[in-house]
């Protein structure tokens, strides 16, 4: 299959609309200043070593408004990026990793199939961060979730409750959140998700998750007298 032939049936208007959404992001003008094609970003890029992936091509396609290549990257490349920002070494001042952050947001906002696929298995993490205010919890350390980390995960998981009580800082006596977050703070966080449209983004990629999150949040928000209407 020739380059971009895979997406030949996607109307150019769709590609243009998505590109325009990327370009409309307030950060865009600070992330791209033209490209020397020097490849310094590629040399620094961890993902370029292990995937067919290139931050230079991201800067090139975006700079040249190459809609075909842009659309291919939006579907096939952006989720390979490690978001390490080593590419900020760019002598031109570009931020290919930042462009990818914006492209990912556009992919999510538009519910692209590739974005849904990239987030498969990731829903529990979105649930954790949005509903508890901490991204990972001690009880996520389950041997079946991290088989490649060896038997030590099972040891932690078996002793979890006891080992958490053996921590001197009192905010760490938790197993379902990384630290203790009070209810008022959680309510404030939920309000942020509502007011900034993040819940609507979740709806685009995972309706089930959106429903669960809404249920969890509504209760606390109502208790606190906030109207989410």
């Amino acid at each position: 299959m020739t380059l971009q032939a895979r997406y030949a049936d996607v109307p150019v208007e769709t590609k243009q609309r998505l590109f325009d959404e990327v370009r409309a992001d307030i950060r865009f003008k600070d992330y791209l200043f033209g490209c020397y094609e020097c490849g310094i970003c590629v040399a620094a890029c961890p993902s370029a070593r292990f995937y067919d992936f290139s931050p230079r091509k991201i800067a090139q396609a975006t700079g040249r408004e190459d809609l075909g290549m842009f659309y291919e990257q939006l579907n096939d490349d952006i989720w390979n990026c490690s978001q390490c920002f080593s590419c900020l070494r760019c002598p031109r001042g570009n931020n290919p990793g930042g462009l990818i952050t914006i492209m990912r947001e556009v992919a999510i906002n538009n519910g692209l199939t590739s974005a849904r696929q990239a987030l498969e298995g990731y829903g529990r993490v979105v649930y954790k961060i949005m509903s508890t205010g901490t991204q990972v919890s001690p009880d996520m350390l389950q041997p079946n979730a991290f088989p490649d980390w060896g038997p030590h995960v099972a040891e932690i998981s078996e002793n979890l409750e006891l080992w958490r009580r053996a921590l001197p800082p009192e905010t760490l006596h938790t197993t379902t959140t990384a630290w203790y977050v009070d209810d008022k703070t959680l309510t404030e966080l939920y309000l942020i998700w509502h007011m900034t449209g993040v819940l609507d983004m979740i709806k685009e990629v995972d309706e089930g998750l959106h429903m669960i999150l809404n249920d969890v949040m509504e209760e606390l928000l109502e208790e606190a007298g906030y109207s989410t209407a």
Partner: protein
Amino acid sequence: MPIPLNVIEARRAQRDERGPTAPPTEDIREKVFELEAKGEWIVQRVPEPWVGVTTKYGRIKKIPAEHTWHHKSCGQCGHIPGYSTAIYWLNRALDFDYNDPKDQTSCTAWNYYASATSNVGAQAAVAMRNFGAAYESGYFPTIHCGTSYGHYKEVREELVAHAELRDEVRRICDKLGKPFVMPEEIVHYSEWVYAMRHEFAQRRVLDLSSIDVTVHPACHYHKLVVEDAIYDPDVYGGQRTAVVSAVVTALGANVKDYSTWFDCCGFGFRHILVQRDFTRSFATLRKIEVMREEANPDVVLTHDTGCVTTLDQSQFAARAHDVKVGVPVMSEAQFAALAMGAHPYRVCQLHWHNTEYRPLLEKMGIDWRERWREFEDDLERLRKGDKQFLTWEDADA
């Protein structure tokens, strides 16, 4: 390969000549104060006493010694809790006043960089809610996570550059009843460890002269908003961030160089959670194995959550592929605490780490068998209900 001495001297001379007035980037802090003068937000001042440190282009950054509000890290608290505990222990060892808040949320940037299920407004609102909470407490934010630190610096730039974003986030803070506050400095805990390194060195009780260390500088510490990270002409000629390395030297251990120091650890944000084949390969082939071959360190020290997790946990599976692994990994805060006599289990909680660390402890002169026996006694007391929690007093008993 060591950097030739004349390069270091030339750099130092250049730095002295150039001085802090000629950096290639603007000083965002001036803009932050201008916005305060216009009544746009409150700037929370760095409390006294503070230590002045030098950033990449020679500017002075204020690092508060105490009265700090500890912005905790998801991965540290959740999976490597000895990391956070050691930071608090170091504060306590210096008798410093600090606040470990319950009204703090994650910066949520790990999720943002992994899944993009958020946006500029939400990310800035989360940051400003936390800053508002710190301000209300009267304590100054010190950020444990490298990603939170880098992300908050990006948020600061975005808020300074875009009035409409400030308006959106101010409206949200108003609705939450939170003051709209930007801290005078955005401070990472490793900057505080760097600033306090001589205090720690004075309190050192172990001889570390035989301990070889490789340092992994955390990407989101020194690559995001580069001009705000600490550099020191005496550390790699000012060509790499000085945090961690300068601490190792101050404690009397040996910093060993390796060629892939600029590479990331392989964390990848989404990869560590759902695509770990990449993470494992990168962490072991590009980092640990290179360190082993070029420097053969006793320990890898780093200053961020994801780096400790990735470099430590990835080594297990690589053993099956005969990759040269087997180097323990921890934060410089844990290492400094150990050097000052902290308990390896009650404080540094090394039983949460994966790669074999006991030979390192032995080489440092720590009787880990005895310390583990003490910790098992603690656990037994907790198990029997004699105590509900291990306390700071227990930790230092």
